[in-house]
Each structure stands twice: as C-alpha cells, then as structure tokens.
C-alpha cells in the first residue's frame, strides 16, 4: 500500500464508498423516497466510475482541435462519455417512473414508510 497506489487509485476507492452509501440508502432506509435517493447516489457512483475511466493524463476534451490533430493521447476517451450520457438518461427515466409509483403508493396508503404500508396492505386485504 504505497502512496503511488493511492494516487493512482483513490477514485476507485471513493467510488466504491459512494456506491456503498447508495446501496445502504436503497436497502436500509424505510422511506421509499429515501430509497430512491439512495438509488440515485448508487447510479451516480457508476457514472463517476465511467467518467474517471475516460480520463487521460494531460488530455483535453474530445472535441477536435486544429493544433492537436488526431493524436489519440491528446483527447479523452469519448466512448465512456457516451455511455454515461446514455446511462444518465436511463437513470432519469427510472427516477421519473419511481416517483410516479411512489406518488400513487402515497395516495393509496397515505404513507411512504415501507413498514407502515405493508401493515396497511395487510389490514385492507
């Protein structure tokens, strides 16, 4: 465990921590909205993972510049950025649907607390 190791890999560690936080929110929180927030954090961690992988030391954004030509090391990797763009849109879409579902759940059971909802479900059944 040397300094170089951390210097080269600290993003991974941070991302793993963020991912853990997101997962914690998704699984441990009882409030549905907080679960969705956890889900968003979880997804964000994944976006960050892709983004940091696109990074190249000393490279610029992947927009062609006259003075750099088409030297591959001069531009960051465009593919992960595309993937993240897609993934973000997917994430937004899921969040939107999740919010609609939560809205309807709240309307029906008057609560966002998972255990309360389950109790009310049993009562009404």
């Amino acid at each position: 465990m040397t300094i170089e190791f951390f210097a080269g890999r600290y993003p991974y560690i941070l991302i793993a921590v963020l991912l853990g936080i997101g997962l914690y929110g998704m699984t441990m929180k009882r409030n549905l909205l907080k679960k969705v927030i956890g889900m968003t954090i979880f997804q964000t961690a994944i976006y960050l993972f892709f983004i940091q992988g696109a990074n190249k030391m000393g490279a610029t954004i992947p927009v062609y510049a006259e003075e750099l030509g088409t030297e591959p090391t001069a531009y960051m990797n465009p593919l992960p950025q595309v993937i993240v763009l897609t993934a973000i849109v997917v994430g937004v879409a899921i969040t939107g649907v999740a919010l609609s579902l939560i809205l309807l759940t709240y309307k029906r059971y008057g609560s966002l607390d998972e255990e309360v909802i389950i109790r009310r479900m049993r009562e009404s059944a």
Partner: protein
Amino acid sequence: MRLAGVVLIALVAGFLMWATRDLPLRGDPQSPASTHVSVYYIENALVDSKTPNMVTAVLADYRGFDTFGEAVVVVAAALSCLLILLRRRDDQGVVDDPDERRRIAGGADP
C-alpha cells in the same frame, strides 16, 4: 438484520476495491480502453462525418443505435408515467361505473 445488511454492503464495496487492483491507473493513456476502440473514434470522427465533437459522433453515428434505444427509454419513461398516473375515459364507456365493468365481464366480444 440491519447489521447483516451493512456488512453485506461493506463486502460489496470491499469487493470492488479488491477488483480495482487490476484496473488501469487513473488517467493512464495506455489503458486498454484508451488504446482499442476509442482510438478509431478519435482518429476518424472528423473524416467520417465532419463532426469535430467526437462524443456527438459516437453518440449519434457510431453508436447511434444506443442513442436510439436511449430515446426510446425516454419515451418509455414518459409513457410509463402516464400509464401509471393517468386514466383515460375509454372511448368505450365510463371506466369506474360498476355497470360498465359488468358489461365488460359478461357476454361475448364486442
């Protein structure tokens, strides 16, 4: 239970950290991701489609089908929200009327 969950999550995070040993270092220009397919995009985006922004070229052309799928995802999300939250009075009757429900339930196909 809660503790078990936290331990499990910690395990997942630890597993990821364990696995990153073999990932390229941060910003390594010689990483596999930077030397295989992406090189083609950087070198040819301008030639193939006159597009200086490589992200756009990849997005809309090389991997245009992903983007098409992504567009469908957005439509699907809109559709899903509408489907979940809205109710349309069908052109074949009033929806919540018990008589109507009975009419749908009985008899042959309309």
